[in-house]
Every structure is written in C-alpha cells, then in structure tokens.
C-alpha cells in the first residue's frame, strides 16, 4: 500500500471519515468549477483589453467607462456577490451536517479506549469495568470493524492531536482536560496515525499503527494482550529478563508479570507482537531494537529514553527476551 492509501483522508475506512471525504469532494468540485469559470473570464478580459492599451503614455491606462457599461458591471458584480454568498452558505450547511454526523450521540455500548499522549509516543488503554481486564499497550491501536469506539483522550505533558486520517478528523489531547471522540470502522485494514499538533522536537515521529480487523481477530488480539508477559522459555531469555530487571529499564517501563511497573515509557508486556517501535518510527526487527536500546537518542534525537551501555552477551539475551514477549 502506498502512503496515499494508508494515511489518507480520501481513502475512508470508517463512517466518520467517509462523511469527511464526501464533504471534501463536494468542496473540491464546487471550488474547481468556480476556479475554472474565474480563469476563463480572466482570460477573456485580458485578451479583450490587450487591444485597448493606449499608445499615449500620459493617458490613463483604463479609460473612463461609459455610463451604460458602468451600470451593467455593477449589476453583474452584485449578482456574483449574491451567488458567492449563496454558494458559501450551501457549503456551510454541508459542513454543518457532516459535523453533526461525525459527532452524533455516542453508542453507550461503545468500546472505550483511553489514549494518553506523551512526548513522543501514545499510551493506549482498553477500558474495562474490571480493573484486571484493562489492557495497556502503546503506539498500536486495534479496533473491531463494525463496532462503535469511544476514544478518551488525555495528555501528560503538552497538547498533542490524535489523527488517523482514514478513520476520523483530528482531536486534540489537552493536558488536564480530557476530550472524547467516536468512530466506527467499516472495513479492515492497517493505517497510520500521526500527532497533528506540534509538541516538540520529535513531533514528526509521533506516529501510531492503527489496525481495523474483523471482530474475531480483534478479540483474539485483545485476549492475548490481557495475559501477563510469557515466562522465558530458554536460558538466554531468562538472562535477558534479569538484565532488564537489573538495569535502568525498570525505572521507566512495565512488563506485566514482573517487578517492572513504571509508566514513564511505553508498556513492553507484548513488545514482541508489535509491528513498529519508537512510535511508528522504526520496524520492530532485532537490529532496530538493538540500536534503539543502545542509543535511542541517536535514532530519535531528544527522545525521553537514555542510551544504555551493556555487554554484547547481555544485549543479545535482552533482545531474545524482548522478542519472546508476544
């Protein structure tokens, strides 16, 4: 898929973005026709007046128009102003109905997801009345096709803006002021979201993977995410877990089922199952993961994760362990 497909408001995958795309095309065709008309009349005017440029430099460039021409021009311009106002008004009404459709009263049974913006990554939490059923992950949102989803948006530091163009318009994440938005995905697909409010050095690299999938696939994914991290199954993975727990990682990251329970950085309980790391910036491959752990600021300058020094053996073990966290 090209970027024009997986990050495009004109390739809608939800009811809301379909409304937006619809409105966009109406605006596009109306303004295109007007633009073409204006261009045509402009050319006619230029061609007609080319012949009338006076030879005598002291004379005014534009001759005084005749009385009749003047009053006809006034009428035409007034009529055009009225038509312009009417067209703008019609567009406004279209805009109003689109807004109404997008912000329609939410389905009370909607799937609630809390998204918290951090410099420069997304914390994603699937809400549940039962605290033990709450799922926390990061930078990757899965939703079932055909079910209404309610996003509760928050920020811990500065203003961010949640934007998955294929799904819905932008919605700001304001510190200290939770906001909400809704959508219903209509077809399966993998899309890319992007922070849409400048939030610091790495704003451009604050992306997320957005997966709309059939309800079955979604509930499989969710129940896999609910489980604590799998126990290490080899010596190397066991050593990797020790390395993780003995180093700085525990000051910032959570791995459910271990003692690591910090929330300064993304939850890593199922990091092995994610498609991308570093907020959609790098593919989740062993090489990138190793580079990221050793020197994250070199890959994402300014990032809130410090470089880490460790021996090659420790690093390999740590990678084995992280990759096993499916």
């Amino acid at each position, binding site marked *: 898929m090209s970027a024009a497909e997986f990050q495009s408001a004109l390739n809608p995958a939800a009811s809301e973005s379909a409304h937006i795309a619809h409105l966009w095309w109406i605006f596009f065709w109306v303004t295109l026709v007007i633009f073409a008309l204006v261009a045509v009349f402009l050319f006619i005017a230029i061609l007609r007046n080319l012949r009338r*440029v006076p030879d005598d430099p002291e004379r005014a460039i534009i001759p005084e128009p005749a009385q009749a021409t003047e009053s006809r021009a006034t009428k035409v311009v007034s009529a055009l102003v009225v038509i312009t106002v009417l067209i703008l008004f019609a567009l406004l009404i279209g805009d109003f109905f689109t807004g109404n459709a997008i912000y329609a009263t939410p389905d009370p049974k909607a799937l609630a997801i809390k998204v918290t913006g951090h410099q420069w990554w997304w914390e994603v939490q699937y809400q549940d009345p039962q605290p033990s059923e709450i799922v926390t992950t990061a930078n990757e949102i899965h939703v079932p096709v055909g079910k209404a989803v309610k996003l509760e948006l928050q920020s811990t530091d500065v203003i961010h803006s949640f934007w998955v163009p294929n799904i819905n318009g932008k919605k700001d994440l304001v510190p200290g002021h939770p906001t909400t938005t809704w959508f219903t995905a209509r077809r399966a697909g993998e899309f890319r979201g992007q922070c849409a409010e400048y939030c610091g050095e790495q704003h451009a690299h604050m992306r997320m993977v957005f997966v709309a999938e059939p309800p079955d696939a979604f509930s499989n994914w969710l129940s896999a995410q609910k489980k604590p991290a799998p126990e290490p199954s080899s010596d190397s993975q066991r050593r990797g877990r020790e390395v993780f727990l003995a180093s700085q990682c525990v*000051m910032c990251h959570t791995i459910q089922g271990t003692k690591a329970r*910090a929330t300064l950085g993304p939850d890593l309980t199922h990091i092995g199952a994610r498609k991308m790391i570093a907020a959609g910036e790098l593919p989740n491959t062993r090489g990138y993961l190793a580079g990221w752990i050793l020197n994250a600021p070199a890959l994402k*300058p300014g990032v809130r994760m*410090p*470089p*880490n020094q460790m021996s090659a053996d420790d690093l390999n073990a740590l990678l084995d362990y992280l990759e096993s966290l499916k």
Partner: protein
Amino acid sequence: MNWKTNSRTARTATCRSCRPFGPHGVRHPAKTLLGTCLPYSLLLPVLLLFSCEREERPLVVQPPLAQDASLPQISDLVPGPKHNKGPSVANPDENNSWMMAEGKRFYEAYNCVGCHAHGGGGMGPALMDEKWIYGYEPQQVYATIVEGRPNGMPSFRGKISNDQLWEIVAYVRSLSGLANQWAANARDDHIKGGSPPNSIPEGTPHNSSEPQPR
C-alpha cells in the same frame, strides 16, 4: 504600446506622496534599505551578547556511566556524617534550567516524591531545608542517590543514567537554594508549601549529625 513609460509614470506618481523620497523620483533602493536598517543593525551586537550565555540543550546525550562513575568514597562500611568532604565537584547542570526541569521530572517519575514529597519530606528527610545528614555538595548528593543510605534511602546504582543523576542532583540542591537561582525552576505544578526553587533564599547548609525525626 509603451509599457515602460506607463509604469514609470505610475511609480513616480505614487512616490510623490511619500515625503522622504522627494519629488524628483526614486531614491536608490539600497540606500533606503541601509537608512532604515542601520539603527536596528546596531542593536544586533547587543542581542548577540545575550545569546553568548544561551543555555545548551543537547539532544543527543552521551552514553551513561552510572556503573563506573567514580564516587567519592565516604567509608566502606558506614556512610555517615563523619566524613571529610573533599573538593567540591562543579555540576554544570546547576546553571541550566532545562536540566533542572528534567531533574524535577525524574524526581517525580522515579518516586523520590513518595518518600521526600516535593522537598518537604515524609518518610525520608526534607530536602528543602539547610540540614544535611550526608552532605550537600553535588558529589555527596550524587553519592547518596547512587549508594543509598542505611536508614531507608534505597540505592539507585545502575538504575539511573549518569546524565539523569546529575540533573536530579541539580534539582535537589535547587530545592534549598543551592543551585543557580537564575536558572532554577520558577513554577510548580503541585501544591507545595514554601517558595519555588528560583526564589528560595540560600540558607547556611550544614551537616547535621543527628538523624531526622520520623
């Protein structure tokens, strides 16, 4: 057709209305520019003077050395009040607002707050007063955090990168007015008794030998 003369006439006509150009045509554009800009350009060196003191804010930090940082050794067995403090180590972070703000962020994120509150103390001693059990010099505070202290201060050795440690040290010292007041944080996100770090009067820090009441 004579476009050239036409536009020329038009230009002189408009320019007659603006006085400084005089009635006889157009002044050389470069001269005009110079005339307007010269007074302002004199201000430039003054502005540059300010930016000399601009704070550094490195985006890429050096790899940490927390494990092998050379710590002032207080004693092998009992880190305690009766130590000689050695020469003070300058901590450049104490002149840098950004670093101290980062220190504050980590101070909260790493839960120093849980035991010391926002400086006022709790289960751990207050850090905003002038009494210090284990010394107030930057390297002593650093050592306290890295090594831990017997009456309940955990060791953060290997858990916090070297850069972050010095940032935390700068912030902790700013709580009692020991860091550069021009750079210390002004605003607090939390309700906290007392003044913000940039307006705390520097007391006379002293090493107290009696343990804090708790």
